[in-house]
């Protein structure tokens, strides 16, 4: 899987490359408009992580370029602008998703995975991760061929863990993934613990490993091979 990361903030670009490379993606990067256009002309990417405000031009122009040249690269916009119309403009110009800075790397990773899944869907919707097999269309999960009975939130949670397997995910990042940006009950993560506890129980009940490790209740990690 090949990604192009278009981001002019070097420190951020570095983190992105490091995190996404460790997730098994082949990452290339561009720091300004011209470099980005050059790379897009030469290569096809599975997904482009695109900053809107770039030296030398706007990310929206790159979207326009992709559209004009009938390129099918997936695009996720990462922008400091949460501006309502920027979001709409971006989606209208063919971006697949939009993420507002500051985002969690784990969240970006899940979104990229979703975009690639949509783009490369070749009649096969079942993903295999260790002992989990996930049907992303039916939104069902099987462990050792036994169906895992999950609520919608639990399914979302499991997918988030699996995509970010072997990573420490902060409770904050998990809560935000599940309940969105206005989740701000910092002193009360009980409902999150409950969800994770239930998920672990269900996995064990169908014969899976207890693969979700708590890190001092501040973060969690799913250990998969």
């Amino acid at each position, binding site marked *: 899987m090949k990604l192009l990361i278009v981001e002019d903030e070097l420190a951020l670009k570095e983190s992105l490359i490091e995190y996404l490379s460790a997730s098994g993606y082949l990452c290339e990067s561009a720091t300004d408009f011209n470099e980005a256009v050059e790379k897009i002309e030469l290569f096809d990417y599975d997904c482009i992580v695109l900053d809107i405000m770039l030296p030398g031009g706007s990310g929206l122009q790159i979207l326009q370029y992709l559209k004009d040249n009938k390129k099918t690269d997936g695009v996720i916009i990462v922008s400091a602008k949460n501006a309502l119309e920027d979001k709409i403009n971006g989606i209208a110009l063919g971006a697949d998703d939009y993420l507002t800075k500051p985002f*969690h790397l784990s969240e970006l990773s899940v979104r990229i995975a979703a975009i690639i899944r949509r783009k490369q869907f070749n009649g096969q919707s079942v993903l295999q991760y260790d002992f989990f097999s996930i049907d992303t269309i039916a939104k069902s999960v099987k462990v050792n061929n036994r169906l895992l009975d999950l609520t919608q939130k639990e399914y979302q949670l499991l997918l988030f863990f699996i995509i970010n397997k072997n990573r420490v995910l902060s409770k904050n990042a998990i809560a935000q993934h599940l309940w969105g940006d206005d989740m701000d009950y910092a002193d009360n993560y009980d409902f999150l613990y409950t969800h994770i506890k239930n998920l672990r129980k269900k996995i064990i009940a169908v014969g899976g490993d207890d693969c979700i490790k708590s890190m001092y209740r501040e973060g969690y990690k799913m250990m998969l091979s």
Partner: protein
Amino acid sequence: MKLFAKYNRINITVTIFTFVLGSVAFYFVLNYVLTRQLKETLRSEQFEIIHYVEQHNSLPEIQNTRHQWVTIEKSTAVLAKPRFNDINIYNEKEKETEPVEQLLFTVKVSGEYFLITVNKSKAETEDLLQLIILVTIGMIALILLLNFLINRNVIHRLWQPFYLSINRVKEYHLNNRQSLHLPKENTDEFNLLNESLNAMTQSIHQDYQALKAFTENASHEMQTPLAVIRSKTEMLLQQQNVSEEAMKQIMGIEEGIQKLSRLHQSLLLLTKIENTHFTFDEKVALGTLLLQKIEEKKELFESKHLTVIQDIQFITLPFHQQLAEILINNLLSNTIRYTPENGVVNIELDKEKLIVRNTATENSLDVEKIFQRFYKAQQNQEGTGLGLAIVKEIGKMAGFDVQYLFHNNYHIFTIYFKQ
């Protein structure tokens, strides 16, 4: 009092005063001239009689008229000088007393003295005088009336540009994307006013735009470093053998980032709502949306053991989809955040209003301040203090009336869709 009414009051007083003074003066002058003319007539009569006596040494035959007559009587006394006399005589024919001017003098005919009185009625003179006064008063009245009519109609038209400008200024909001463009006027004063207002709003508008751009840019510029910090803390978490202490510290940083970021987003959103001309013509299924949002936040309600009582009708109204989502999100988040544990939340929606009611820990919130930015009833609260300001602002833009009430230990937020 209007400026013109003030001016008019002075103007009319002076005009009436002048006319009265002028009329009085006119009366006396006219009276003087006419009396002199009368005396002149009497004198020429006297000369004619004296002349006749000198030539013929006898008294003339005199033809008396109704208005002028001569009486002659023998006299012993001799008048040194002719004498004028002003008397009133009762006129038998016209049955009224009329003023008469007399000239008395003596002539000597054949050694005998005769006292001759020439009488002339002043009635004609009086009539003339009266007529002239009447005409003058009529003129004054006419002038005043014309003045009044002209003022009422013309003045209103003359001031029209002034009122137009004032109305434009009243309707002007800084949030409008344009500065005030008042037209050029023919009247110098109004032109000066318009030009000055144009120049003033132009410069205010520019400063305001610059300030807005600054706010927006500043908020944006801060998001990128925040993104760097967040990505670095996430990378830190991935290190082998992170201690519990380090983990807690990192979470502290993470929460700080979260708050700062949300604060920026809210501020940006507020500026955005104020500065963008949203059109509220999308059909938004508010009932469905509300239920969906309540469902999304189910766990959050449950985690605080809140009882949610709903009475929601599936209404659709012209609104803006995203703003509707933000509005409902903010209202619900606010409710979850401030309702005490085991409290009750009541949500009602019909085609006229949306009511969100929740049990309170404290007394009423400050009705004046509750929708202000950064208002927090207690300083240590978690929220940004912008949520309700955003609700109010969206309501304002959409033409809704957003109200807060405290009743029976309940905080009640009501949005009336039609005002």
